[in-house]
C-alpha cells in the first residue's frame, strides 16, 4: 500500500466499509511505516473529537430537503397483521353462524301455556308426582300414624 492511500483507508475503516483485503494491507503498511502510524494516531484522535464534539451545523437547506423528501414518501401500508386478522374474523363469524343457525334460522315453535303445562304434567305423572291419582288412602294412613289428621293428610302428597 502507498502512503497516500492511508488516509482514505482510515476513513473507510471508520465508516466500517473497509474491505478485509485493504484492512490487511493497511495493517501491514502501518507496521513498517512510522509516518503513516503517526497519521493513523492523529486520525483516530480527530475522529474521537468529531464523535464527541457534536452540534454539527448542517447546511441551511438540509432540513427543508429532508422534509420535502419525506413528504414525497408514500404513506405506510396497512399493518402487517391484517393478513391473519381478516381470515380469523371471517372464521369466527362462520363458526358463530353454524352454532346459532338453528336458533336464528330454524323453525319457530309456539306452544300455548296450556300445552306447556300439559307436557310437564305428563312427565310428572310418569314420575309419580303431580297427580291426585297418586294419592291413596294408604298414604293418608301413613300420615295419620304420625298424628296428622286425614283431612290434612289428603293435601300432603
Amino acid at each position, binding site marked *: 500500500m502507498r502512503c497516500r492511500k492511508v*488516509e*482514505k483507508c*482510515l*476513513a*473507510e475503516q*471508520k*465508516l466500517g*466499509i473497509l474491505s478485509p483485503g485493504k484492512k490487511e494491507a493497511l495493517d501491514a503498511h502501518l507496521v513498517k511505516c512510522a509516518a503513516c502510524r503517526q497519521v493513523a494516531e*492523529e*486520525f483516530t*484522535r*480527530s*475522529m474521537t*473529537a*468529531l*464523535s*464527541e*464534539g*457534536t*452540534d*454539527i*451545523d*448542517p*447546511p441551511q437547506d*438540509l432540513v427543508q*430537503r*429532508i422534509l420535502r*423528501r419525506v413528504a414525497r414518501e408514500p404513506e405506510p401500508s396497512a399493518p402487517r397483521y391484517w393478513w391473519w386478522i381478516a381470515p380469523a374474523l371471517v372464521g369466527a363469524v362462520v363458526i358463530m353462524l353454524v352454532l346459532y343457525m338453528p336458533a336464528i334460522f330454524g323453525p319457530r315453535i309456539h306452544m300455548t301455556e296450556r300445552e306447556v303445562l300439559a307436557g310437564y304434567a305428563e312427565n310428572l305423572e310418569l314420575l309419580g308426582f303431580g297427580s291426585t291419582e297418586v294419592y291413596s288412602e294408604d298414604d293418608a294412613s301413613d300420615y295419620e300414624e304420625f298424628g296428622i289428621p286425614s283431612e290434612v293428610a289428603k293435601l300432603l302428597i
Partner: protein
Amino acid sequence: MLKRERNLRVQQALQKVKPKYREGLALRFELDLNLQEMAQIQGISLGTVKSRMSRGLKAFHRAYQALGGE
C-alpha cells in the same frame, strides 16, 4: 485540552469542510444515520454516500490537524 476548547476546534474545522461533506458528517455523527439511510435522505446512491463520507472524514481530519489537532 479542555472539552469546550476541543469542541470549538471541531466546529472551526467543520466550517472548513465543503457543505456537501459537512451535511454527510451531520447526518452520520449528529443524527446517527447509517449509510443506507443517508443515501435515501440525500437522494443519492450508496456508492456516492461512501465516497463523500470518506472524503469528508479526510477533509475534516486535515482541517482539524491544521488547527492544531489535539
